[in-house]
């Protein structure tokens, strides 16, 4: 069963096309990731889904309710966490939570079991003004406030941007527990490593969807043999590899270079020999499986080539 259905949605701001003919189905109780760079159109899609923006074209439903016609009903069953921290900074942690529980006509106690895991972590700070919390704490509070009315669908727009790695990991732990409670979660993120934590993801680029699938199957779409290469001089390594005739694409990933080659026949030895001839020392070459980021780059390149 589909919790969120998006059919051929388009949206433009003047001449700028933000979304181009987008269709996505999100199943009930899954964590669905929208992966894309800044400006890819993720937030626009969110605004349409949470009934803040009208699409130019197309149709979207949440729990079979139309986002345009049934917006009031949708607002009751939707939990939304905007990309920007949008709680009252001058109110205390407790006052914020109490306020959001009250405007949905409920109380904190009614749905306490849903937020309990998260709430116990911020409870020691409940009298502190929300504006004085750390980034990770703010996210937890925002999540609590989005959950306090027991929504069935949760929309999280870049919840982990600007949050430290430990808090990010904790945050994803919480999402996994929410999933067990049958809550559908739509989450957007610019971090590729977070994509692997989703049940399914959509790769979005310049308002179009490049791929929708489970993270694993998306990486299988890569289809090329991939090497991870380390050398002492990263810059020269990158330059030399771009000159290599078997090179399909190569990008630096931290301290390493990921190199995709044209032919499956290219071996570690071939590469090592080539690099040795170029004068590189202490070269480590490994065959690796493509990650989501490799796939994203590859798909992005393909779509750019098609356009030009």
């Amino acid at each position: 069963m589909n919790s969120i259905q998006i059919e051929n949605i388009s949206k433009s701001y003047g001449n700028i096309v933000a979304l181009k003919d987008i269709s996505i189905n999100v199943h009930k109780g899954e964590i669905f990731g929208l992966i894309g760079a800044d400006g890819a159109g993720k937030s626009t899609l969110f605004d349409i889904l949470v009934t803040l923006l009208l699409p130019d074209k197309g149709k979207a439903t949440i729990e079979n309710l139309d986002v345009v016609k049934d917006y009031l009903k949708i607002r009751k069953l939707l939990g939304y966490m905007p990309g920007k921290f949008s709680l009252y900074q001058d109110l205390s942690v407790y006052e914020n939570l109490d306020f959001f529980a009250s405007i949905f006509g409920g109380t904190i106690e009614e749905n306490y079991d849903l937020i309990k895991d998260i709430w116990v972590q911020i409870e020691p700070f409940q009298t502190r003004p929300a504006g004085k919390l750390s980034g990770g704490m703010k996210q937890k509070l925002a999540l609590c406030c989005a959950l306090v009315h027991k929504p069935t669908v949760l929309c999280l727009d870049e919840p982990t941007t600007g949050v430290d790695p430990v808090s990010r990991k904790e945050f994803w732990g919480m999402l996994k527990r929410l999933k067990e409670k049958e809550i559908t979660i739509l989450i957007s993120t610019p971090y590729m490593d977070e994509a692997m934590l989703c049940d399914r993801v959509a790769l979005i680029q310049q308002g179009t969807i490049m791929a929708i699938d489970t993270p694993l199957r998306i990486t299988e779409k890569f289809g090329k043999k991939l090497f991870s290469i380390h050398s002492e001089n990263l810059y020269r390594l990158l330059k030399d590899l771009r000159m290599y005739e078997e090179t399909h694409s190569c990008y630096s990933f931290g301290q390493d270079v990921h190199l995709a080659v044209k032919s499956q026949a290219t071996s570690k030895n071939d590469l090592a020999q080539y690099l040795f001839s170029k004068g590189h020392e202490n070269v480590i070459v490994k065959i690796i499986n493509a990650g989501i980021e490799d796939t994203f780059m590859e798909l992005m390149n393909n779509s750019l080539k098609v356009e030009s």
Partner: protein
Amino acid sequence: MRTIGAIIRKEFLQVFRDKAMIRIIFLVPVIQLIVLVNAANMDMNNISLGIVDRDMSPTSQKIINKLQASGYFILKDFETTSAIAIKKMERDKTDIIVQIPKDFEKDIYKGNNPRISVTVNAINSLKAGIASSYAVNILTDYAKELSANFQATANQNNISYFDITYSNWFNPRLDYKTLMLPGILALLITLIGILLSALNIVREKEIGTIEQLNVTPIGRFQFIAGKLLPFWILGLVLLTIGLLVSKLLYDLPIVGSLLLLYGVVSIYLFAVLGFGFLISTISETQSQAMFVTMFFLFTFILMSGLFTAISNMPVWAQKIDIINPTAYLVSIIRLVLLKGSTLSDIKPQVTAIIIFAFLTNALAIWRYHKTS
């Protein structure tokens, strides 16, 4: 209802948490009542007087004494030729020159209708008008006194034989403070009303909290009611503080019904709060809202009849004042407090305020819908 209650509770929490806000709401009105009422005093008692006495007679001396004894004038210049006196006025030494011609006393005895000329520096027309009327009053009084002394010379036709007496009703001592206080109360209510509501909602836009509110099932009516009611209550508290300060410090006469006054102000507050809310729906930032608010505030206040009587304004300005809610409120507060007017006396003004309240709120709700 619970939703509205939640918003009201939240607003009060925020207002009372913001120390600067508390000061604006409670301290500023008191200070303004103390400072403005005393500063914006239009009673004249230190008009600089120049005298050109070319007669130098006991009569001319008596006139000068009379002017000085009135307490309105301070003798700043004494000349014998008008040219020098005029020069002094040009240099802003004097506000008014009284010229007594040569042979003034002799002419009076002969019955030749001598003329005293009064020249006023009209740079400040308000001051000029008041100064000249004071001077003319004193001189006429003295003329009457003289005519009583010279009953025999009946052919003096420049001296009036009938007596003009007047009294200032509803403000018997023509106390300027009594006139200003109700007006300043009206200003304070307007200022706080428009500013608080305009800035409040724009602030939610600026911080982004409005986005979080918009995805909740709060209805438009609930939102506006929840936003306006706290400031409505604050406005009435402010009126109470203002009335208390006026009574304690200035002994403001309260002739009419306080209940009527509170009733009218309640409606008026809805009007200005709705107006502030309307401003907030068309502004994106607090500074934008501030500028728009200031524009309307100044217009409303300067044209409210507090500083210039509306009947003295040009016709087009009077027409504009038809849509100035503050003008109605200033008039109502004065009528109710000083004159003791009842609801039937102020029906036209109250009707206008009700219409204004209805229009601003309807527009605000409509605009709020369009922007969300």
